[in-house]
């Protein structure tokens, strides 16, 4: 029974080592891998922090276990009083400070690319304006071949909850809110940005693979918060152009074009779900 506490405290670092060892093969890391270059860098930051706290956790617990183990047979009645040791105080102040300083400097690059507008990549395509409102994402694209302007234009294209972007390309959206605070969250791309009423926030990302990525609201915005399900669909440039063209066709539809049968009126939205 004397050895219970040393064993108890030694069990956790051992468990941590086992978990660390088997996690990669069991898929116990992030729910999905990141599908954007910046997302991969963000993941690497998380991994780095995980390694630092992992080593610290294992090291301190092994130390604690060791001390307890040694103390089981210790018959010395008097303890060693370490309070006020200048060297020890220096050590455990400077070591964490150094680690924190390292983390803060190391992440600067990623943070700057992600959030500092003057350092955004230069070759970006501004795809759309996304307006979050209770409880949906309203999307405004520029007309084919045109640039997105800050104010609505007569030939702008509108859709909802379904953001198409060309794959392998740095794209930028202008994020707005129509009412309260929302948050544009695409976990698969590691993008999360609050939409703040009264501001237009540029958010950029790049997708590495064709596919659809869940878009959710990550800021409790009201009773229907859960209803704000959308998607970001990354597709080939040619498919993207085709999609924008079909939107333009739909938006200009006057019921008198060649395809005047009733079903043609639903072309756009049916196509959106077919692609899944």
């Amino acid at each position: 029974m004397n050895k219970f506490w040393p064993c108890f405290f030694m069990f956790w670092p051992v468990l941590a080592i086992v978990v660390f060892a088997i996690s990669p093969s069991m898929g116990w890391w992030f729910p999905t891998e990141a599908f954007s270059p910046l997302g991969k860098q963000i993941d690497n930051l998380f991994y780095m922090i995980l390694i630092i706290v992992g080593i610290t956790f294992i090291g301190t617990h092994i130390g604690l276990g060791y001390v307890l183990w040694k103390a089981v047979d210790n018959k010395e009645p008097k303890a060693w009083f370490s309070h006020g040791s200048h060297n020890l105080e220096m050590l455990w102040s400077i070591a964490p400070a150094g680690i924190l300083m390292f983390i803060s400097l190391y992440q600067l690059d990623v943070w700057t690319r992600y959030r500092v507008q003057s350092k955004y990549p230069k070759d970006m395509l501004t795809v759309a304006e996304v307006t979050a409102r209770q409880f949906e994402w309203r999307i405004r694209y520029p007309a084919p071949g045109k640039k997105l302007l800050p104010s609505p234009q007569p030939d702008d294209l509108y859709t909802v909850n379904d953001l198409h972007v060309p794959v392998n390309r740095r794209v930028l959206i202008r994020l707005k809110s129509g009412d309260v605070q929302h948050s544009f969250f695409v976990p698969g791309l590691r993008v999360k940005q609050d939409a703040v009423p009264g501001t237009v926030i540029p958010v950029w990302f790049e997708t590495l693979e064709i596919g659809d990525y869940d878009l959710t609201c990550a800021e409790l915005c009201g009773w229907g918060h859960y209803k704000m399900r959308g998607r970001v669909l990354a597709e080939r440039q040619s498919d993207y152009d085709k999609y924008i063209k079909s939107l333009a066709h739909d938006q200009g539809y006057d019921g008198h074009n060649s395809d005047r049968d009733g079903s043609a009126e639903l072309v756009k939205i049916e196509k959106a779900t077919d692609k899944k």
Partner: protein
Amino acid sequence: MRPKVHLLKLLVAAIVLSPFGCTSKRGPEFASGKQTGLLVSAAQELVRSELKSSFGTPTSLVAWQVLPVDYGVFEGKATKFNGQDLVVSLKGIGSNAADRRLSNLSGSVVTNEAGVAIGEVTHYSPSDGAMRLSNTGEAKIESDTTVRVIGDGLQFGRDLYLRHCMHCHGVSGDGDGPTAKYFAVKPRDYRRGTFKFTSTVQGVRASRDDLKRIIKLGIPGTYMPSFMLLPDDEIVSLVEYIRWLSMRGEVENSLYIELSNDFSTEANKDKARAEFKKEVDNFAASQLPGKMSEIGRDLAETWSASEDEANLLLPKDARGNVDGDSIKRGRELFLNKDVGCFSCHGESGRGNGVSTETFNKLPNSTELSKVPGLFDDWGNLVKPRDLTTGIYRGGRRPLDIYRRIRAGIKGTPMQGFSRLEDQQVWDLTNYVLSIPFKAHSESKH
């Protein structure tokens, strides 16, 4: 030691009571409409029982075959039937779409070759086609005959409706769900069968495609969100359920109209209760079956009309060029006294026309409203659309605006303009679509 005993009692009581919970465990129920409440109690009872036998309850739906609703049908060949267990091979099974439907099968009705209901499905195993039935009657199924299993689509629609729509639109589609009270713009009450934004001509109801479009795109400027990402089969089932709910509401209303002459509380204040019972029973026995089939026939006719190609509103002339001249002509029409757009929408399109400040006739009545403004058929005070915002509830395509002008917005004071020439409607459309940009450039100067 006394407190400890109390604590123990409390603990025991809590454990014993916890499985029962605090809230009532009743499932969803269809609420009666307001008008039904105006009838004497015997007549109310009759309306309720009639609705229950024709439409069932939310947990046990009835598929009234007269109505033009696609309830979802599986056809199959019966191989064995012993009065309760049916072995049947359903057609089309094996495809993903059909297998998805199978999970909504329990509760569906099985009919034999003659169309007579045999019973309700309580269990079905797709591997061997064994089906267990409940509520079975005398009717028989010969082996190797065709059976039909009806109702999976409606039940699927019901489940989806309760999940996505009920909290605003209410269990019975009365637009009075638990979240409805927070809205300035009221959720649609389906029970009149009227939907605002349609592709059909004046006087005709919404088509399936119209409802589908609204569900997919939502209604900007209101609390109706977009359900763009729901799979197509879910939207189709939802549309059928919503149409069915509308028809249920209309049946209730028709029965009220039928009964209100003889059995309204208002007109029968000094009659004895027992008398009603007899008269209502009399009515139920002699006239009701005929009336119900008449109501069903009418519903079938009106709702089928909205699917009729001939009632789809499409312009004869193309929109043509959108130029300054067209916009100018549109502006002139907008201000024209005979057309009169400005009287509601205001001269600059801000939705502040003079009718918003006058006492107008209430819809379907000769009475004037008690407060100034415009009222829709549901009795809500409505504002004419502010056309400077660039938000178009019924869609922003030129065709959508054309249809709003041509056929009106159903159930609202926005009437259709059937007298205008096609080109005039396009001029108006072009003008309306230009208003937000004009307002914008004006405010800049």
